[in-house]
């Protein structure tokens, strides 16, 4: 494998090449028949729009609204997803009663929840939190179930032979055994929570990065659309990396096993 010293310049060069292509395609209004760059703003225009947003007073409010929505929905989904996942993974009765309705709800996209969410929740703020919640719940839930079911039954048997009761087995064997898979679920869930943000903020009245992106489209501020898109991408990537980092800290034995 090439050394990191060679690989990093390659990665940066790849990004720069994409930017260059974007610049050329957008400035020449490249038309490929199937799709066209006629209305795509150039990187320069996007940079100007980004600078305007940064220097305006609204960025902070957009950011705090979006972050608080994503994180409240996400945290709720994380807690509920892990708890339900442990229950379903450990108990056949819970699997039979809880999993079928959840499986029916799972394929429903966030966008389809909007009308019902508006009808069900007293405030639009709560409906938006609910939509980011639906985005994160299922990856966390399914990965937790998978992790719990993959715990080596010999470890459970051994712990029982050493005097562990049900609660101790859950705490000492099942939860740590499923943790690497739960961390994966939490990282994926973080990403999907951000996916759902634009959808959620279509019903926002004022602030939020998703709202900003959608509003820019309706106002035909095309450079602003791309600023919003990139902002969501960067924030989503950053928070997923944060979750992965925290997850790695929580599972030091796991990193080591993969390295060896």
């Amino acid at each position, binding site marked *: 494998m090439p050394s990191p010293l060679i690989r990093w310049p390659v990665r940066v060069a790849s990004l720069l090449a994409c930017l260059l292509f974007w610049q050329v395609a957008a400035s020449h209004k490249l038309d490929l028949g199937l799709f066209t760059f006629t209305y795509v703003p150039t990187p320069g225009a996007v940079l100007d729009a980004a600078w305007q947003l940064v220097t305006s007073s609204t960025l902070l409010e957009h950011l705090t609204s979006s972050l608080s929505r994503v994180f409240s929905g996400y945290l709720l989904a994380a807690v509920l997803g892990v708890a339900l996942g442990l229950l379903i993974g*450990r*108990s056949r009765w819970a699997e039979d009663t809880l999993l079928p309705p959840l499986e029916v709800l799972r394929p429903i996209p966030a966008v389809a929840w909007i009308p019902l969410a508006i009808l069900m929740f007293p405030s639009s703020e709560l409906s938006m939190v609910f939509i980011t919640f639906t985005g994160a719940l299922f990856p966390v839930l399914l990965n937790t179930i998978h992790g719990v079911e993959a715990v080596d039954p010999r*470890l459970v*048997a*051994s712990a029982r*032979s*050493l*005097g562990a009761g049900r609660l101790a087995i859950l705490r000492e064997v099942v939860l*740590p055994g499923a943790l690497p898979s739960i961390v994966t679920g939490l990282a994926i869930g973080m990403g999907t929570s951000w996916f759902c943000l634009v959808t959620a903020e279509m019903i926002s009245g004022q602030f939020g990065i998703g709202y900003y992106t959608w509003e820019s489209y309706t106002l035909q501020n095309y450079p602003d659309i791309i600023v919003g898109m990139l902002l969501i991408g960067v924030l989503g990537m950053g928070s997923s990396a944060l979750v992965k980092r925290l997850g790695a800290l929580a599972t030091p*034995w796991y990193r080591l096993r993969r390295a060896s």
Partner: protein
Amino acid sequence: MSSYQQAPEPGRIDARGVSIRLGQGSQAFEAVQALDFAIEPGEFVCILGPSGCGKSTLLGALAGHLVPSGGQLEVDGLPVDGPSPQRGMVFQHHTLLPWRSVLDNVAFGLKMQGQGKAERHRRAYEMLQLVGLGDFAERWPSQLSGGMQQRAEIARVLINRPRLLLMDEPFGALDAQTRSRMQELLLDIWTRIRTTVVFVTHDIDEALFLADRILVMSPRPGRFIEDLRLTFPRPRRSSLLTSPEFTHLKRHCLALLRHEEGRELPRLTPLGLPDSDHPPLRIAL
């Protein structure tokens, strides 16, 4: 006097007509059938038999992981009812918790008893020194060699001072050199921590080297076809393996096992069938 040198616990096993069924529906079969035997406290018994004969299944029932379909299984007069720290189990591949240090793994049983951290670490460290792992207390289990993992596993079981030490081919996955060192180490530990040992193996040399008594098992349904008492003096050293008496008994065991040749059976485990859903282990919350 250190904590592991206490008076030996009793550890008598009485089995009367024990049968164990595995599998479900039309696939079900009797892994062992109508076993009658008694094992004295402090005895070192090897159960010798070919792969799939049901010897691991019997061990699983003694540990309490499998429930006999018939007969009575008693330890010190009390029926076996589920797993217990009184009946410690060592599997062929270690079952140390990967997320705990070697020291915390060995201290696990004491933690389950509710002992404080300082006390359980002190006793776990003492136990690790007994198995020669004093320098590896802070490592992760995955950082140990196969032989060291099994030593840590034995230490973890023995810290509970079990009446029975149940071992399912514990050295079967080790290379020949390590295996013979582990056998000597096990006998050495056993002289210090006297407990009843039931040791399952298909290796005739291993059974003859370790045991006071060998129960030879024939496959499916598993039955005992020989009850062999060994009088080789202890402590035993590897020179025993080349003595004429040893060779004579080995030939006898070979003849008993060869009798059953030509029948390849899938390996059974102390938790039932290898690829089953492990129903006895699925515990409702």
